[in-house]
């Protein structure tokens, strides 16, 4: 099938997209949709790494100027962690709460209410537990009339019983 049909009055010929071209174009669009967030995430991580490297260099430069050793990182505290990465104990405690809850799955608010931990700590711990495949994302829970979430259905998590 011709992709261009000549027109008698001299106007530009109409271009008809071939099925294969259409499939190729749609596939490229879908691939682009998959690539975009990955590239954005990489750019974000590279920027954060650059900032961290700069801070480290500044600290070492000051320490060198004072002719003292570079300060050591503070020892990790047990229990509630003030750092972004929750301690293994916190992760284990959250896992235990989820395993014993009797609920099919829990939102981060359920976990926060059950543990008394801060939302940021719960979120960080849930992320680590997912990476370790001790828990998994199971879906979301519709919450009618809940103005706190503004209509967004919170994600639900459950302990991994498979594998």
């Amino acid at each position: 099938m011709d992709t261009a049909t000549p027109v008698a009055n001299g106007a530009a010929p109409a271009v008809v997209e071939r099925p294969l071209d259409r499939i190729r174009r749609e596939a490229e669009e879908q691939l682009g949709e998959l690539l975009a967030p990955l590239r954005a995430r990489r750019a974000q991580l590279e920027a954060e790494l650059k900032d961290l490297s700069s801070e480290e260099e500044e600290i070492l430069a000051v320490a060198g100027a004072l002719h003292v050793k570079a300060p050591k990182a503070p020892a990790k505290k047990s229990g509630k962690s003030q750092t972004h990465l929750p301690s293994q104990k916190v992760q284990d405690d959250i896992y235990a709460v989820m395993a014993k809850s009797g609920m099919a799955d829990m939102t981060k608010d359920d976990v926060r209410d059950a543990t008394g931990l801060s939302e940021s700590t719960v979120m960080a711990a849930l992320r680590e537990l997912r990476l370790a495949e001790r828990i998994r994302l199971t879906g979301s829970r519709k919450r009618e009339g809940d103005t706190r979430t503004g209509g967004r259905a919170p994600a639900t998590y459950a302990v991994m019983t498979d594998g």
Partner: protein
Amino acid sequence: MAEGQLEHLTLFDVSDREILLIVRDHANPGGYVFAGQISTVLDIGGEHPGKVVASRFSWLKRLGALERAGKTDPYGTDEETGQLGWRLTELGMAIATGKLKKQQQQSLDRMDPGEVILLTRWLGGRVSQNGVGRFVDREYRFGKGGGRR
């Protein structure tokens, strides 16, 4: 789209294993789920949430973890939308529910860094020729990047 909703379904959002277990959890008697159905389960936002799920399912089909329903397969068609369903293959079920034996886990835990590198080299040679290798790569990348939801 509400704040915090998933707009994409990348590996950083949901792992292959999580997606496959969600398929298993929500399958109909024929083992099938539908893209629109799963987009509701995961509360995907944007204008075409079903398309977001279908894109991820398409990747998993190419990697051999999911298969598409035929038009005459029982339970394979959504009665309301006419969508064709997706279901786990044998590989997909193995990825979703597989588990190392305790002895295997202990052997791997005892490996020193040099042995880990040798294992990785062997693994690369073993799986490079089939879809399993793609899943190995994806598992490694998801583990590095972490889920963000």
